[in-house]
């Protein structure tokens, strides 16, 4: 029995049909063709499927698509503006904070959520905040540095536009 769900995804009003037990991750990737969000483990352990649900970062594999009715979803595709990279994306590239790139969307969305809540995190805070995102390639250090640098960039921008 299909359910009809109405939600806002990346600022677009979206309507889709799904099965009752379909995850948000499945619908994002297979129906809405937003394949930036990755399927790493399916059990909420790796964070590769991290998205924002009503501005809170969550694992899309642990949310039923039907639960998003009337809510807002933001994925990695909403980071940056298409032509211009977000400070986090720029710093990740410069720092070499990715290799295979599969964990990267999840890290970027988590980092975005972190910086919205804690614009000046310490290194320790960054590490704890990102504990829900696993990376098999980089060893994490460059990711942490990139996030700290992006935080400085964003704070400098905020200062400059005062």
């Amino acid at each position, binding site marked *: 029995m299909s359910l009809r769900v109405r939600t806002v995804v990346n600022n677009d009003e979206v309507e889709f049909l799904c099965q009752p037990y379909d995850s948000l991750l499945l619908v994002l990737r297979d129906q809405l063709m937003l394949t930036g969000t990755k399927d790493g483990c399916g059990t909420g*352990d790796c964070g590769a499927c991290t998205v924002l649900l009503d501005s809170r970062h*969550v694992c899309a594999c642990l949310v039923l698509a039907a639960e998003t*009715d009337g809510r807002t979803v933001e994925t990695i595709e909403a980071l940056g503006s298409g032509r211009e990279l977000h400070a986090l994306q720029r710093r990740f590239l410069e720092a070499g904070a990715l290799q295979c790139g599969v964990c990267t969307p999840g890290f970027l969305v988590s980092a975005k959520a972190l910086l919205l809540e804690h614009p000046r995190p310490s290194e320790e805070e960054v590490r704890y905040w990102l504990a*829900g*995102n696993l990376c098999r390639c980089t060893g994490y250090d460059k990711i942490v540095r990139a996030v700290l640098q992006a935080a400085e960039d964003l704070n400098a921008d905020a200062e400059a536009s005062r």
Partner: protein
Amino acid sequence: METFTQPGTEAELWDLLDQHENPRPLAGGTDLLVQLRTGKRRPECIVDIKRIPAFAEIGNRNGSFRIGAAVTCRDIVRASAGEPRMEALTGLCQLIGSRQIQNRATFGGNVCNASPAADSVPLLMAMGARYVLLSRDGARTIPAEDFATAPGRSVLRPKELLQCIELPASQAGTGDAFLRVTPRTEMDIAIASAGARIQVDKAGVCTNARIAIGGVAPKPLLVQDAAEALVGTVLDAAALERFVFLVRQRADPIDDVRGTRTYRRHVIGVLAKRAAETARDRAVAARQGEGH
């Protein structure tokens, strides 16, 4: 046939539960959805309780701090911000899983999932928590230590749900603490855990103690015979030694992939001791802060 429903009122909820054979309530989904994917559970109907006000309560009412079954760890942290003596509880909320998990996971779900290693339960027990269980016929309240009966099992009746967790207002001069050991530093299931509440008088002597241990028995255990060994003492070495001995005696752990029976029995003594000491330190600080 699989169904997903989102009742907006209690009346709708009871009707839905009556209409289906095997309905499963959904709060944060951080246990249920994993069970779905691994095939451990396949309910015929999932009932999302998050839009029903009765399960969303968070705050002080009628002399206790109430945590609705659908309230997330993150919301607990926010709501506890101004409350005194919530350090252990908010610390626990930020320890569970990851930030992503904390944005969805609920204490209600953790309690009802009834894992012997449930993270929230030892501290809730030490804090004297009571659970309000709700059904079409009304509500009943039971102490936290009487809820779980066996791994994954509880006293919940069919078509009965946990409505909220009640934490009685803590007394002056009390401190709480929770400690656990996990195989990895984050994102893991506890090998063993301990929750403690200690109350001290002006001289720093323990006047009351509640200690609960997790991961070392088919369900979390309140170990009051061990806790009694601390009352009337300043948690000196001899008192703690007796305490640790009694804690280890009550533990009845198993061997599994995360740890051996021998290790668990050893480490639960260490955890309980450290939790008691930390709770005592917080209690002493609370006494000083209260100007006694």
